C-alpha cells in the first residue's frame, strides 16, 4: 500500500466532503433567503438530500457500481424500495384519512 494510494483515498474523502458541504449549504440558504414558491423549495430540498445521500454512500461508505460491491448495493436498493413502500404508503393512507376528516 503505497503513499500514492493513501493520497488518492484522502482525496476521495475530501471530494465527498466538499460535495456534501455544497449540498448542505444550498438547501439551508434556500430556506433562509429563498422566497421561491414552496413547491420549488421542496423539490430542491428533496433533490439535494437525495444527491447528498448518494455522495455520502459513494465517498464515505464506498458503495458504487463495481461488481464486487453489488451485494451491498442490492441490499441498499431493496431496503430503499421497502422504505418507499412503507413510508410512502403511510403518508398516503394517513394523509388520505386526515383529509377526509377535515
Amino acid at each position, binding site marked *: 500500500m503505497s503513499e500514492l494510494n493513501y493520497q488518492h483515498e484522502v482525496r476521495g474523502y475530501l471530494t465527498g466532503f466538499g460535495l456534501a458541504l455544497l449540498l448542505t449549504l444550498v438547501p439551508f440558504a434556500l430556506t433562509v433567503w429563498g422566497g421561491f414558491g414552496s413547491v420549488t423549495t421542496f423539490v430542491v430540498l428533496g433533490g439535494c438530500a437525495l444527491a447528498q445521500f448518494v455522495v455520502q454512500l459513494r465517498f464515505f461508505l464506498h458503495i458504487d457500481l463495481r461488481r464486487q460491491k453489488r*451485494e451491498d448495493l442490492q441490499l441498499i436498493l431493496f431496503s430503499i424500495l421497502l422504505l418507499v413502500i*412503507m413510508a410512502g404508503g*403511510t403518508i*398516503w393512507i*394517513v394523509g*388520505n384519512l386526515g383529509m377526509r*376528516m377535515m
Partner: protein
Amino acid sequence: MIPDQLTHWLLGRFGVSSLPILPAIENPTTSELVAAGAALAVILGAIGGIAFITWLGAWRTLWRDWLTSTDHKRIGIMYVVLALVMMARGVLEGAVMRTQQAFGLNGGFLTPEHFSELFSTHGTIMIFFVAMPLIIGLANYIVPLQIGARDMSFPVMNQISLGLTATGAALVMISLLLGKFSTGGWTAYPPYTGYDFNPGPGPDYWIWSVALAGLGTTMSGINFAVTIFKERAPGMTLFRMPLFTWTVLCAAIIMVFALPPLTVATLMLAADRYLDFHFFTNDLGGNMMNYVNLFWLFGHPEVYLLVIPAYGVFSESIATFSGKRLYGYASLVYATMAIAVLSFTVWLHHFFTMGQSANVNIVFGIASMCIAVPTGVKIYDWMATIFRGRIRMTVPMIYALGFFYLFVIGGLTGVMLANPTISYQVHNTLFLVAHFHNVIIPGVVFGLLSGYHYWFPKAFGFRLHEGWGRLTALLWIFGFSFTFFPLYALGFMGMPRRSASYTDPAFEPLMLVAFFGAALIVSALGSIVIQLWVSVRERESLAVPLGDPWNGRTLEWATSSPPPHYNFAVLPQVEDRDDFADAKAKGRAYMEPDAYEDIVMPNNTSLGMIICVSSTLLGLALVFYIWWLAILATGVIAVAFIARTFVLSTTHVIPADVIAAEHRAWLAGVHAAGPITRDAETRSANHGLASLELPTLAGAER
C-alpha cells in the same frame, strides 16, 4: 421514609391485590376460579418442572449443555420446546373460549373482561410464542445442516435471540400470576390500550413482551440472512439450495424489514402510556389510526413470515415421501420471492373499513388478490411432485394432504376478504376468525408439525411413533374442520368476533359443533404428548442413528443422527441441487475423506441467560413501575454486553483425530448395516440407511 412510601418505592404499583388468588377467594365465581386455576397450573407446572430436573439431577447438564450453549442445534431444540409449552396454553385457551361461546347464549360462565383477556393472550401467544419460535427453532436446527455449515454466522447473537423470545414468553406466563394481561386483543389497538382507557398493567405486559421478543426476532432474521448468504458449503450456489433454506431466507428478509414497524408501534404506544406522548391519543393531535397502519405494516408480512417456511417444509417432505425431485424448483423459488415482496404491499386490507377513500382500498384490494397467483403456482408444483411418485402415507404426508384441501379453502376465503366490498360486510365477524385460523392452522401449524415429524429423527436419533402420529394428524384435520367451518356460517349470520356471549339462539347449534371440534383439537394435543412419551419409551426400536431414515435428498441427511457438534466431519462439496440424493446415486455418499482437519467451534457463554433474566426483570419492573429495578436491569444488560466485547478468545478447537475417530465409527456403522427399502421405512428394521431403489427414482424422473 414512612413505610408506605418505602413499599411504593420498592414495589411500584405492585400490591397484594395484583395476585389473582384473592379475588377468587373473595368472590368465587366460575370466571375467577378459571383464572385462579390457570395461575395454579403455571405454579404447579413450574414446580413440577423444577422437581423433575432435580430428580434427574440434570441442573448442571441443563446449564452447561443447553442454556449456555451456542450450538445452533441445541438452540433450535430449545426454541421448539418453548413453542410447544406455549402451544399447550394457547390451545387450552382456545378451547376455553369455545366452551364459553358454546354455552354463551345469554351469558356463559366467563365475564366479558376475562374473555377479552383470553383472546388477547391466546392471539399473542399463538403468533409470537408458538408460531414464531417453532419456525425459528426448526430453521435454526435445519438450515446450517442443509447448507453444509458448522453453525450460524453469529452463534452468540443466536443465543441472545432465544433469550429475548423466552423473556417475552415468560412475561406472558407471569401475567397469569401477577396482575392481569391486556384485554386489547393481539393487535392492541389504542385507544383501547391507551392510558386513559386502561391505566392498568395489562397493556404494558403486552407491550414489553412483544417488543422484547420482537427484538430477538429481528436479530434472528439478521442471523439467518447472513448465514445463508455467507456460510454455504463450497459448490452450494443459491440455486442449489434446498427449498426450505430458500423459504427461510425469504422469511429472514421479512423479519429484518417487517419487525421494525412493530418496534416503532409498540414503543410509540409505550411513550404514550409512560411519558404522556400523543402519538395515538384521542386528544391533542394524536392519531390512533396511525397505530393501526403501523401495526399492520408489520402484521401482514408477519403472516407470510409464518407461512413461507411452512411452504418450505412441505416442499421438502413432499419430495422426500414421493421419492422424487421437487417439481418446478425454480418456479417455487421465484414464487416465494414474489410472495415475500408482495407481502409488503397489502397491509391495508386489514383495515378497509377505517375510512380512507375507495381508491386507496381498491389499490390494496387488487394487490392482495395478486398474492393468490404465486401461491397457486406452488400448490400445482407440489401436486405435480406427488404425481407418479413413490408415495408413502407417513405422518408428514397426511399433514400435507390436509394442508392441500384445507389451505386452499382458507386461501379462497382470503381472496374474498381482499375484496373491500365483501370486507365491509364480514369484517370483525367470525368469518374473519374462520379465515385466518383456516390459513394459520392447516398452513403454519400443519407445516410445522409435519416438519417436527420429518426432522425429529435427525435431531434425536429415533423416529416418532407412527401410529400415534397418524392419529394426531387426523384429529387435527377433523378437529380443525369441525371447529372452524361453522364459524364461516356464523360470520355470515352476523356474529361479531371477540364477543363473550350472544342473544340470538340461531347461533347456538353451530357453536356446539365448533365446541365438538375444539374437543377433537384438545385430544390432538393429548395424543401428541402421548406420542412423544411412547416414542421416548420405545426409542430403542425406533432408533435411526445412521442418519437417513426417509431416503432423504438434502445435506442434513448426510450426517449421523443426532449430528455431531460440528455437523460435518469435513464440509461437503456440493455438486447438485438435491446433493445427497445425487451423491447416493453416484456413489459419492459415505466416503472417508483423505484427511481430517481441526475444527474451530464457538465457546459456550452465559451472556444469553444473563440477558434473558435481566430483561425479564426489566419487563416486570416497567409493568409495575419499579424504577430502581428497571435501571438496575438495564445496567446489568449493558455491562454484560460490554464486558463480553472484552473477551477475546471465544472459540475452541476440536482436534482432527477426535473427529476422525467419530466419523470412522459412524461410517463403520453405515457399512455394517443393511440398507432398507421404502416398504420397511416405518418398521424397526430402519436404522437410517436407505437402499437406493433406483428404478422408481429413474422412472419418476422421466
